Each structure stands twice: as structure tokens, then as C-alpha cells.
């Protein structure tokens, strides 16, 4: 990889020494967007070690503690053993919650949503797990490798009817989605391109649970895709898609919507697309630049995204919970509309305002109530409850820092302090009431 000049313009790095100081707010913003919530220890460490070091820690693989390794292995093996997708869902949720590498999980979720594949049709935990492993392997790596891998992934082939794609009866399902949803986006291809590409993927089948190139069902004739003519096979189509200028733009859009803002401006998309191209579609350096950029920390982009159910639920648990009852959490997430391994369609979750309706607001409020006031979903961390003897002011400040990125001010601050002061019961009950109020607020649904 050649050493590139740092980006300029919109993506120019923010100078923390002169332009802005690195405070709990900036650290919380970075961790909030790049992880599923954060613990107070993680926040303290981030504030202390500064932006550059924190970003590197997020980007580079950290060793996992032994307890995580044991639990992760037990949960994974059991999912394979029972063949129950719920067990696999719990495995992944556990990872998001407990991992020392949360950005990898966040990016994995981004790709799961990008290549949305549902167990509902695949019906194999092993294949869903393999696909997840493929995603995780390339989560911060080469998008080209991920896209090539996906085109041969067994779960994907089952999901998009690979075995039905035969020489004399091409099935366009995969060819359509690779253009519309995986690489380019609507408007960057023609129906003819899809039909031709479908023929190139003919014979890409699953046999005995693994990818198999079925030569006898592969269309060997000439195809015309994006104006180029040749006897293309599937891999050639993937490369053609990757070479389209729409591809980095499409990815830039995804990254920006996930990490920066809900409606990125065209020039910002172009700027990120340029960096993606320059970094040869490797995600890690692109993310480094994004997390260091002025635009990332811009005031307008702070607390401007609506939390997905996973960001809300797993994020709250990471901040607050010592132990978690995962079957209930899995059910809750499905009810909230984000059921991992079973997205509603190949389009995945659009998110944003679409997460919100009356029913989901009630579920989110009920989640706040149950997490804060009961032990039905989880037990609270000692580090959260051990503040019981402090004053109302300092308890609200501590919770505001942990749960709201240190942005509790004005009327909100006064209301929280008043609640803590007036709340009945012992100090733990007063604390729980305050947490419940914070988790129930519309402000808390943003990050």
C-alpha cells in the first residue's frame, strides 16, 4: 500500500490540539458510533489516551479475554449442535456485547445488512455461520475479496437461488442483487446488464454444502455487460462491478449513513468514494480517515442518528449490564424489528426514522423500564451501582456521561436531578429510577 497524502477538504483531519479539545463528548461520540455502547472504563481510557490512540485501538485487533473466548466457543458450538437459529443469534449478540473488538462487530453488522441473507430461506445454521465468518474476516479489509467471497458463499447461493441458475434457464436473482444492492445501487445498470450477468453466474451452484462450479450448466457464450463484451464468468462480473465508478460511491454512502449522518451530501459521498478508491477498497484506512475527520465531529452530526434496535439494546447492555438473559433480548430485538440472521428481505434494514412507530416506542420504553428497574433482562454492573452514596448532582453527571455522551444540560439536567432527589426508596432504587428515565428519553434514542 503506497503512503497516501491525508485527505483534504471535507475529510480533512480535525486538529484536536488547536481546533477542538478532546473531551468526554468527543470520546463518547467516537465510541458511540464505532461500538455498540461503551463502558465507563472504555470511555475513561479513550479520554485519557486521546483520539489517535483510541482510533488505532478500535481499528486494530485487540486480544479477547479468556472468559469471552470460552463463552463465545460454547455458544457457537451449541448453535451448530442444536441447529437453532436463535442460538446463533445469541452467539452474535453476545459477541457484540462482550467483545474487545466492537468495531469489527459493527462493521460485520453493516455487511450483514448490506448482503442481507435470512435463515428463513437458507435453513442452515452452519451456512449462516460460515457467511458470518466470511463477513467478519473481511469486515475491515478488502471489499473486493468480500464481494468475490459472497458470490460463492453457500448461504448466499441458497438465498438467491443459485442452483436455479442454469444455462437454458438463467435465474437473475443474484445478478440483480449484486448490481442493485451489493455493489452499484439503482440507476447504475440496465435490465440488459442483469440478464447478461445472470448468464455469467449460471452453473454457480451448491453441492454437498459447498460451492461447486457446475460446468455443464454454465453458459459459455459471449455476454455484454456495462458495454464490455466477452465470455465472462461470475468472477469477471464481480470485477466489472467493482470497476464501476458507482461502486465506491455506493459504499461511501453506506459508511456515511452508518457512521456519520443520515443524509450525506453529494460532495461528501464523492470525497469518501475517492478515498475508498485510493485505498483500493480496503475499509480500515478509510475508517481511520473518517473517524479522524472534521466532518465526523461536526456539531450537526452529533446525536443526529436514530439508534437501531441493536445500538439501543446492546449498547445499553454494554454500558450497564453485568449479566444478560439473552433469549429475552433476542425476542425483544425481533419485536423491535432488527432480528439478526433474519432480515425482512434482501434489502436489509433501511433504519433511521423507519425504526420508529408507536409500537416500537412502547417497546423501547418498556425495555428501559425492565432493564433499569428489574432483573428480568439483565443485572446491573457493579461499576454502575457502586455510586449510590454520591450526591444527586454527581450521580446524574456520571450517568449523563456514560449514557448521553456528557450532553445532559439545562432542563433535562434539572429534571434528572429532581427525579433523583425526589425518588423514593433506597439509594439503589433512586439510582435505578434515574437510569430508567434516561433510557426512556427520546434523546437517548439518538447517538
Amino acid at each position: 500500500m503506497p503512503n497516501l497524502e491525508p485527505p483534504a477538504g471535507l475529510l480533512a483531519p480535525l486538529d484536536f490540539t488547536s481546533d477542538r479539545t478532546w473531551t468526554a463528548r468527543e470520546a463518547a461520540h467516537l465510541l458511540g458510533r464505532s461500538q455498540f455502547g461503551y463502558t465507563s472504563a472504555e470511555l475513561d481510557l479513550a479520554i485519557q489516551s486521546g483520539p489517535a490512540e483510541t482510533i488505532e485501538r478500535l481499528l486494530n485487533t485487540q486480544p479477547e479475554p479468556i472468559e469471552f473466548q470460552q463463552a463465545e466457543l460454547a455458544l457457537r458450538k451449541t448453535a451448530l449442535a442444536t441447529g437453532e437459529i436463535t442460538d446463533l443469534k445469541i452467539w452474535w449478540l453476545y459477541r457484540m456485547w462482550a467483545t474487545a473488538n466492537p468495531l469489527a462487530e459493527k462493521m460485520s453488522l453493516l455487511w450483514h445488512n448490506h448482503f442481507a441473507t435470512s435463515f428463513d430461506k437458507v435453513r442452515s445454521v452452519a451456512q449462516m455461520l460460515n457467511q458470518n465468518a466470511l463477513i467478519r474476516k473481511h469486515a475491515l479489509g478488502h471489499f473486493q475479496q468480500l464481494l468475490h467471497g459472497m458470490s460463492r458463499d453457500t448461504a448466499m447461493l441458497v438465498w438467491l437461488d443459485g442452483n436455479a441458475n442454469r444455462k437454458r434457464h438463467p435465474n437473475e436473482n443474484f445478478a440483480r442483487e449484486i448490481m442493485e444492492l451489493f455493489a452499484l445501487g439503482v440507476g447504475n445498470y440496465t435490465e440488459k446488464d442483469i440478464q447478461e450477468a445472470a448468464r455469467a453466474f449460471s452453473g454457480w451452484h451448491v453441492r454437498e454444502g459447498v460451492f461447486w462450479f457446475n460446468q455443464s450448466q454454465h453458459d459459455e457464450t459471449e455476454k455484454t455487460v456495462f458495454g464490455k463484451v466477452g465470455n465472462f464468468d461470475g468472477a469477471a462480473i464481480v470485477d466489472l462491478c467493482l470497476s464501476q465508478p458507482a461502486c465506491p460511491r455506493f459504499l461511501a454512502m453506506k459508511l456515511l449513513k452508518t457512521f456519520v449522518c443520515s443524509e450525506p451530501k453529494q460532495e461528501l459521498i464523492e470525497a469518501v468514494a475517492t478515498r475508498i478508491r485510493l485505498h483500493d477498497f480496503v475499509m480500515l484506512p478509510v475508517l481511520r480517515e473518517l473517524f479522524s475527520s472534521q466532518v465526523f465531529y461536526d456539531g450537526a452530526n452529533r446525536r443526529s442518528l436514530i439508534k437501531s434496535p441493536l445500538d439501543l439494546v446492546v449498547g445499553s447492555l454494554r454500558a450497564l449490564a453485568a449479566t444478560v438473559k439473552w433469549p429475552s433480548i433476542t425476542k425483544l430485538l425481533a419485536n423491535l424489528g432488527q432480528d439478526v440472521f433474519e432480515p425482512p428481505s434482501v434489502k436489509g434494514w433501511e433504519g433511521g426514522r423507519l425504526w420508529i412507530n408507536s409500537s416500537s416506542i412502547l417497546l423501547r420504553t418498556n425495555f428501559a423500564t425492565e432493564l433499569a428497574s428489574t432483573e428480568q433482562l439483565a443485572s446491573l454492573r457493579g461499576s454502575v451501582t457502586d455510586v449510590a452514596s454520591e450526591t444527586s448532582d454527581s450521580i446524574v453527571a456520571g450517568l449523563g456521561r456514560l449514557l448521553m455522551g456528557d450532553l445532559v444540560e439545562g432542563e433535562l439536567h434539572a429534571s434528572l436531578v429532581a427525579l433523583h432527589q425526589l425518588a423514593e426508596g433506597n439509594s439503589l432504587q433512586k439510582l435505578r429510577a434515574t437510569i430508567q428515565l434516561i433510557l426512556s428519553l427520546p434523546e437517548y434514542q439518538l447517538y
Partner: protein
Amino acid sequence: MPSSTRREFLQLLGSAGLISLGAIPPRFLVTAAEAAGVAARDKRVLVLIQLAGGNDGLNTLIPHGDPAYEKARPGIGIPKPQVLRLNDQVGLHPNLTGLRELYEEGKLAILQGVGYPNPDRSHFRSMDIWQSAQPLNDNPRDGWLGRASEWQFDRQPALAEALSLGSDKLPLAFVSTRVNVPSLHRLEDFQLVDGQGPTANRDRIRTTIKKLVADPASGELDFLRRATTTALTSAERLKSLSATYRTTVNYPSTGLASRLKLVAQMLTADLPARMFVVSLDGFDTHSQQQPGHAALMAELSGAIRAFEQDLAEHKLSDRVVLATYSEFGRRVAENGSLGTDHGAASMLFALTPTGKGGLHGTYPSLTDLTDGDLKFNIDFRSVYATILDKWLEIPSAEVIGEAFQPTGFI
């Protein structure tokens, strides 16, 4: 807003301590009032009953005047004297007494010969076709009501809400690649849980939330505050009304009746949802059809009749269209085990407040068949077009992807 609703609403606010917030009407009050006002006047509601398994239309709307019927159904045909005659040609299953009353009152439309070209006899495939309204799409991503919700969401989000009742998996009809439709089982699913800890704390938390969300904001926060206001208001209304909800109507003790009662309660409480889907299973009557099908007919008829009475009692009849549908009808000829196999065109019921009840379409011939099945004369997408264009006021061509002529039942 009717005065009784307003009084009740103000009581609600009063009890929450919000009525004394000063001279400027708080946001909470305004939006909630708006929501309630919009709901009462403009919200037209659709209730769909999915008859899963493929209802035997021939034994539901019986062509008793056609000798071919007796010939095709020697073992499981409904004997002529038992048929609830609608005219010389057709009549209803003897257990559909409630529906016959509705028919006679002009409230029930019966659509004959509903289907689609090149019918598929697989449950899954045909159910997909009915729910997606896209017979040519092998892999439908979304359903017709899901797309209708999207259209509405982009224009008036408050009117886009929908609910699925009593099914574990969201019916494809409601699946949208953008809008998330919740699935409820019980009324409690739409309520705030109390949690543990002192009651006073819970009350204080709720009061504080309501106070805080009442302030206007901008961007996503404003959106969330409005949505929270609507949701909390709805839940409180539902709760206070479920305590006071009274009906003199005696709902039968069946699953469908209890689900429709739930719909009625939600409508009474003015929940934002305006599309409901409920399911009644068990129509795949391959053998020993008679007793099971008769029980289902009784469940269907009793539940719809009670629901309609309840709506009338609460002055909601004008706001509700209810329709049944099933993935296919069944073969004209019965099979060897006193049952019927998967067929094609069938009939459906629609409760219509527009005075357009009665028989629509023509009964398909029992002798001019395609592969042993009835031929359709009403495309089911015309039925959808009727509901979308004439009732929900959502352009059907955009939702279905093709223009269909509405039928006359609305």
C-alpha cells in the same frame, strides 16, 4: 373531537399534571389532540382476515341451484334444505347465519370467482402471490399493504401504521423493505410495563417524560418527541379504555372473535394503526372436511357478526372495511377421503359500510373448468385496487405496479 372524547382526554392530561403548564398550550397537548382529532374524522380502517390453508369456496357460497354441485360433491356437499339461500342459485353454508344477517342488512358484499391467471396450487407460492400482489415475481420482497404503508409513510407518517394480530410471523402482505409493521398478540403488548421499584418513582418518571417531550425540538429529536407523544397517549388511552371498554356484544369464545375484539378495542381507543391483519388457520381440508370446515364457518361468521355489532355500538362502522381472503379455493370435485384438494378461483367476503353489499361478479361455471378448477372472473388485484383507491385513498397503481379496475363493493 367529540365532547366525550375531549373530556376524557383532558382528564387524562389533568391526572398527569400537565393541564396547568401555563398559558401557551404545551406541544404534548397540541399533538395529542391533533392525533385524536385526525383519528376520529379521517382514519379509515382496513381489517383483513386471512383464511389460511385454502378455503373451500364451493362449500362456503354454495351453488345449490346447479345440479353439477351435487354431482361433484356426493359425500361432502351441503344438502339443499340446509343451505342458507340468498337466491335461487346460491346460498351460504348453514353455519354462516351471522353473515347472512349482514348480507340482508346490505353490509356484506360477496365477491364471486376471485382469482388470478395461471393459478399456483402450492400454499406457499399462492399465499405469496396473494400477499405480494405480484404473480410474476418468484421472490417477492414485500407485500401490498407493506408498500401501501411506505407510500403513506412518505406523505403522512401518522396514517401509515399497521398491526398484525395473533400470528408469530409477520404476514408477507405487511412486509415492507422500509416500514416496520409490529405483530401483536395481546392488548398488553401495546402497553407500558410497570417494572419494579416504588410506584411513586414510576409515576414521576412518566410525568417527567411527558413534560420533557412536550417541548418542540428540531430534526430527529423533534420526530422522536412527536412519536413518543403519540405512542404514550395511545397506550394510556388504551389502558384507560380497556378498563372502561364495555360492549353489550357477546363475542363467541373463539380465537378469531378474540382477535377481532382486540381490533375493536384498539379502534375504540383510537390507536394510530389503520391496517390490521388477523389470521384464521385450518382451511386445508384434505380429508374428513365436513366437521372441521363447519366449525371454521361458525367461527368466521360468529366473529364477524359480533365485531360488526361492536363497531356499530361504538359508532365506528363507518370507518371500517373488513375483507377475507384465502390463497386459493379447492377442487370442484371432492377427493376419496371426504375432503377436497388445492384448487384455484374462489370467493371472498367484504364488510362494507358504503351500502354496496350484495353479490358481485358471477358464480364461475361448475362444468367449464380449467384442470378441474373454477375459472376466475374478478382478479384479486381489482379487489385490492378497490380497497386502496376507494377506501384508503392510496393510489393502487403505484402499490400494485399496474392499474386494475376497482370492483363495485366500495
